[in-house]
């Protein structure tokens, strides 16, 4: 049966195998003079052993189907908002990006009243820019028209 720990252990073992595969292009070196692949290979072997052990001992853990994701819609929306922020930050500038992210999260995801959403988003985007960029001199990206 597919249990939580069996799947988790198998996933860790796969990550370890991927690292071992990717390390093949790096020199392993010798015991007296370890190369750049030495430590990653050593760690990947340890992770592989750990992953197999977790999977092997994971029989009594709850079945994978018992995992609940009731918040998946929110989580997906937040993930998309963050991904948009990463793409837009240096193109649209800090203020515009944060404004759009907040409008999306508050207006679309949380369905807050439009006036409250706009006031909060504008105040937050401009207020934090003023605080960090202008007062604390943390350089934040500017977008079109110096926004």
């Amino acid at each position: 049966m597919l249990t939580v720990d069996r799947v988790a252990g198998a996933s860790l073992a796969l990550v370890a195998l991927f690292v071992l595969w990717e390390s093949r292009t790096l020199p392993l070196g010798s015991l007296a003079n370890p190369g750049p692949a030495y430590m990653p290979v050593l760690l990947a072997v340890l992770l592989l052993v750990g992953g197999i052990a977790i999977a092997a001992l994971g029989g009594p853990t709850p079945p994978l189907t018992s995992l609940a994701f009731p918040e998946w819609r929110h989580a997906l929306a937040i993930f998309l908002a963050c991904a948009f922020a990463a793409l837009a930050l240096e193109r649209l500038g800090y203020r515009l990006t944060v404004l759009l992210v907040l409008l999306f999260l508050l207006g679309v995801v949380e369905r807050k009243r439009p006036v409250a959403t706009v006031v909060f988003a504008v105040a937050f985007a401009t207020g934090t820019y003023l605080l960090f960029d202008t007062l604390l001199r943390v350089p934040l990206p500017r977008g079109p028209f110096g926004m």
Partner: protein
Amino acid sequence: MLETLHNLAIGFSVALSPPVLLYAFVGCVIGTLVGVLPGVGPLAGISLLLPATFGMDATRAIVMLAGIYYGAMYGGSTTSILMRIPGEAASVMTCIDGYAMARKGRAGAALAIAAVGSYVAGSASVIGLMLLAPPLAAFALRFGPPEYFALLLFGLLVLAYMSSGSMLKSLAMAALGLLLGMVGIDQMSGYFRFAYGVVELGDGLGVVPVAVGLFGVAEILATAGQPVPPKVIEPRLRELLPSRTEWRQSVGPIGRGTVLGFLVGIIPGSAHIISSFVSYALERKLSKHPEQFGHGAVAGVAGPESANNSATSGAFVPMLALGVPSGPIPAVMLAAMMVHGVSPGPLLIRQQPELFWGFIASMYVGNLVLLILNLPLVGIFVNLLRVPYPYLYPAILAFSILGVYAVNGSVVDVWIMLGMGVLGYVLRKLDFETAPIVLGVVLAPMIELALRQSLAMSDGHYAIFFQRPIAATLLVVAAGMMLLSLRTFIRRGLDWRARMALAEKGES
């Protein structure tokens, strides 16, 4: 002793200068806010404010960041007592009896005992830090690569052992963290490893995006869709004074919590979380009325709150004296110090005494500021919890993006944060601890360098780790812990770590 007092006087001359005092105050206020807000925590708070310190000199920046750390420890107790929601993980145990006291109408007394206990423990443990760090630093000058490798390995194994839940899973997470720390340019050969042509990955994965992703973003992903928090119990100002009996009941637990917290704090691991759990268990064991625990026992608030604040100072001992962080929060503090050109380690106290002793003195000042700040202003801090979570989490998310971007001015860091957020979310669902990953990322370059230098020194013989007494002792102690952990596994009973995991899930 005279030299220590002289150095402390130098420290106070730094800490009591108006600009440093101001930054200590600002750090404490921000820390309290961070501690009050569920889901932010000291780690994310320090990470987010790190870029704002770039323009400051090192002493002011470090004093402010340390203020955030122990301010968050204070703030976390407020939500635990008034709402049964731990503001940060170390306050989990305070929830049990603190909230029970609040329901009996003793919310003010519980807050006062937590604040006074935290103050006493915080101040007393700084004395321990002051006395212990300099000799430890002098001793550490004897350390070579094998000793450092053994110490770092010991730290990771202790963290895995101390973590609640499965040690095997924690070790796997530490290995994963160390592997993530391998990304970037190899310091000895100059090879690019696992960077896939992304130039920004040359310096490796930054500890700030990793920590904010695994703790901050993962928390938001997991909790944003959940129902709103329960109602806040409002304390009245005149109720803040505990009764004489309550004072009497809290003296012993505060004293024991202080000593215990400091000792646990020095040991690598999530010290402040473990110390509060161990203190709670100890107080229940020593109590003449253990049946009162869970129903508003004063010792159940005084002990854990003192212990977690004392552990905060304890955690600074290995960080300042050896340059080795004992958990994820000291790891971020270490990264912050390095950003400011300060290298914690055996030579720090000798080369930058005004910074070290100024930092120590600022901790005394900070503890006093927190005591003065927290009790009368508790109502104001609690009001922050009235901001509905649907407004709060987008703001926290925007702060996370801002903070992570600002460290290096790179969107690659924002992507790393997002990736770590998803990883942290999935790992939470699968019941894995994420703290060892952060520590692994921080320790990876140090541990790799120490291992490769040791092997080069010994011409490839691993026996070097057992031929040097300090390294051998550390490795034998670590092996002993592994065996202890195996014993529990074979017996299949509930040891203290399993009980802690249950308590964290609210099943105690």
